[in-house]
């Protein structure tokens, strides 16, 4: 009669709860540090953080970032420094979302949002320009482009990121504020470093 046990196994499944999420209509909550589409941040006064140093471009293993810096105009500076990112382009057909550009950036200008649901119908559309990557100059939130699928909460605090070692890249600075001010969000509290005793949430 053990032969009939198999039938019970399949029959019992009918009454079990489903684990399926009906994806396009409902998204599961994303992990806190998911690597999605990049954004270029602004300071609280609306100035761009990018200084056109091309470090991100240099570190990029997929060669997908193209940056050209230019001198800031004296009467109307774009960034609080000598130079600013004149051209900033990311090719999303090449990008592997490794976040090395984010770690390389000396001003924390480039970060990644949690949104990865976007698509294109030709190769040129896959190249995001500086206009598309920059956060909105009023609210400081990422621009929600028509071909992207943003959901509630996915555009919040997109400038959050963490270095592999500590919030500052140096263990002795652990727990100290490492963020420059963000347009729309201001200066945020220091994040917990990896050596912190507080356990990370499981089941990411």
């Amino acid at each position, binding site marked *: 009669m053990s032969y009939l046990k198999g039938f019970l196994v399949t*029959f019992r*499944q009918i009454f079990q709860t*489903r684990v399926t999420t*009906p994806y396009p209509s409902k998204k599961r909550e994303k992990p806190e540090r998911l690597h999605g589409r990049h954004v270029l941040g602004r300071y609280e006064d609306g100035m761009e953080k990018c200084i056109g140093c091309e470090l991100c471009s240099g570190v990029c293993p997929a060669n997908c970032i193209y940056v050209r810096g230019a001198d800031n105009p004296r009467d109307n500076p774009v960034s609080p420094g000598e130079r600013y990112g004149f051209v900033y382009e990311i090719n999303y057909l090449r990008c592997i979302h490794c976040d090395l550009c984010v770690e390389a950036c000396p001003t924390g200008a480039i970060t990644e949002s949690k949104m990865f649901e976007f698509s294109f119908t030709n190769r040129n559309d896959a190249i995001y320009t500086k206009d598309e990557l920059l956060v909105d100059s009023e609210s400081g939130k990422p621009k929600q482009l028509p071909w992207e699928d943003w959901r509630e909460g996915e555009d919040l605090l997109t400038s959050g990121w963490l270095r592999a070692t500590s919030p500052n890249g140096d263990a002795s600075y652990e727990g100290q504020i490492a963020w420059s001010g963000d347009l729309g969000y201001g200066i945020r509290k220091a994040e917990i470093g990896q050596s912190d005793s507080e356990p990370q949430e499981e089941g990411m």
Partner: protein
Amino acid sequence: MMIIASDPLLSSEIGLSVVAVMLLKVVLAFALLMVSVMLVIWFERKVVADMHNRVGPSLAGPWGILQTLADGIKLFFKEDLLPARADRVVFRLAPYLSLVPAFLSFAIVPIGGDFTNGGDGTVSIFGHRTLLQVADPPVGVLLFLALSSIAVYGVMLAGWSSGSKYPLLGSVRASAQMISYEAALGLAMATVFLSSGTLSTSGIVAGQATWNWNLVATGVIPFVIFVIAGTAELNRPPFDLVEAEQELVGGFHTEYSSIRFALFFLAEFMNMITMSAIAVTLFLGGPNGPILIKQISWVWPILWFFLKVLAFLFTFVWLRATLPRLRYDQLMDLGWKLLIPASLGWFLLIAALNIGEDRGWSTFLVVPIGLLVLSLAALLLNGAIKKARDSNINAADLSEISEGTE
């Protein structure tokens, strides 16, 4: 109307109302079958999804109930491919050879009507008394057997005419499988004819209207054999070697696309419904069942019939969700060495009992003697099988040795 009325064929015995009722029944049966195929495909996908802990179709219509319609429309607008090496005429003909028998065999199934208390199962439509089945030929269930044999041609010719090796292999498997299981199927059905004394489906249903449903004679061994052989006849899991995806891509319909593929699909599910309906008719008393509310007494037989069919459909889906596919030699072993001898033995036992009743032999003598003879035959068969297997193994050993020495 005047032309029909003045027709010499219709003027004497067959009135216009008979023709009208007949036409109505044909159209109704056709529509019923089409709609139920649509719902059954959805039902199967939904239930098998439940058993896999999935969701299943859920987007087209409420609970995805229109999914089949969407699939049908999609298939209809797909390109209709004709392989270069196909036999064109046969390739086009084959789907219809599958579909038409599937349609026709449903015609003999009574789907309603009161057979209890000596009722003959007729109902009154527009003052005309008729059975709730399209046709009630005297040969009855033999028509079903004949049509299911024709359906083998549909599968066989589809595979052969595709001009491709996977369909050919699939169809060779299919015809071998369907022909071998038809024997067990037929023998299980023969037991039913023997105990009901008629081939007509309405007669068989009327014979089961008593309290015992012929439970001992047909309800256990022939019923189980019929369900197993019927599953094999339908090429459904665990006997779906015909279209075993892992081995044959898609089996006999690999080269078919567009609406021709849809026709095969339609035929497959229609056969599933028909097989369930035939099983209900032969073994479970068709539309018989308690009539609970007297005011709408005509509803209950139809309801009981559909509930019984639904139980069968659920079982077929359950089998699919649970059992892995058999190996081909296991399939043949089960068919030839177990099902055919078992059904034949039971058939002979029932036949002996019937003759004994006619001649006035004692039942207490017929049963033990019959069982003794049958167990002797089983022993002989077992011995023969064992001997054949041993000699096969020996032959294999010998050939291995001779290969090794060379």
